[in-house]
């Protein structure tokens, strides 16, 4: 076989492999160049973050509108503080909004559910660096069972 033909076949082989890599990256791994756009930072403090992780989603009505960027502990109040990166193209939220740590399904991952509040005169939108005042902590199943058993015993 001539050198030209060999080079042609090798070219086809390498291009085929590169196409495979592209299929694996975009079709199988779901990689996208779009990214999630620009974001701004909000804070929320909970008394218990449960199984929340960095990069867990923030959802509003099931739509992902932000991600958990960092979880740290406030040294004075001993409360966990969660830093959220909210996507700018989803807009801003009024300061009466509330956030809660929820679980998707019975055994699923934990995420932050955002409930937008009312907008009225004298109520501002949360800007970069703002803070959600109304927060609900993660439900710990063991505590729930404990309360349940306690309430049964009290009924006797």
């Amino acid at each position: 076989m001539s050198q030209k033909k060999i080079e042609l076949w090798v070219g086809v082989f390498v291009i085929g492999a590169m196409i495979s890599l592209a299929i694996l990256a975009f079709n199988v791994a779901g990689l996208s160049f779009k990214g999630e756009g620009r974001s701004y930072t909000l804070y929320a403090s909970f008394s218990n973050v449960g199984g929340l992780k960095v990069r867990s989603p923030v959802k509003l009505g099931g739509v992902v509108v932000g991600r958990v960027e960092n979880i740290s502990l406030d040294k004075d109040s001993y409360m966990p503080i969660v830093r959220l990166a909210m996507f700018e193209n989803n807009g801003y939220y009024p300061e009466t909004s509330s956030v809660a740590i929820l679980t998707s399904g019975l055994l699923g991952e934990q995420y932050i559910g955002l409930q937008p509040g009312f907008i009225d005169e004298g109520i501002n939108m949360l800007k970069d660096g703002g803070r959600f005042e109304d927060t609900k902590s993660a439900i710990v199943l063991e505590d729930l069972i404990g309360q349940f058993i306690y309430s049964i015993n009290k009924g006797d």
Partner: protein
Amino acid sequence: MLDYIGAVGRLSLYFIKTTGKSCLMLFHTIFGMPHPKLFPLFIGQIFQLGILSLPIILTAGLFIGMVLSLQGYNVLVDYAAEESLGSMVALSLLRELGPVVTALLFAGRAGSALTAEIGLMQSTEQIASMEMMAVSPLKRVIAPRFLAGIITLPLLTLIFNVVAIWGGYLIGVTWMGVDGGAYWSVMQGSVDYLPDVMNGVIKSIVFGVMITWVALYNGYHVMPNAVGISRSTTQTVVVSSLLVLAMDFILTVFMFGM
């Protein structure tokens, strides 16, 4: 008793000698590498190792994907979780089966051919006559094959993975009736680009180095007769397959175990 101790000593010496000789060879090969005049030889070797291995890689990939999908479906359907078929097929292929099975096939198809070719060159004294003409056989014969082997195996692995995932789709979706959209979306949800796809590629690069190194060493240091060539070829396949399995375990522990 003394014979046994002697045997242990002989084995250890043999092991150390082999390791030393092969490392020396690798060293000379790597440092004799950059030589633009040898580029056509390198292309020719990619043809020999890569394109001529494609038929077996494609067939094996298709059938392994189909079997994986069939078995996975049978287990998952009991838990009504057949939607996760796509993520099961893709993850097991990208992380383990793809690199390892391709490497084993490559050792059988290309590694043995390399050993036999260089072994015959060595035993018909072509390599010695190259040295007589002041042509370095390490540069002219070994280096292009080594480089081609390292580059070819990851490319073959990528093709294998795609064909196998498509084979899984074929059985799972078109035959067993799993929802096609769920097959892809669950897969995209659970597969990550860097930790899954790229770690598989890194694995196959390591396997490529191991296999071509073992094959070239066994060919270069062949016993120059018919028995020697057959023994070296067998040894290449056995040793490189075992090395691939052992390295796979070690790499998996480092990549996914911690």
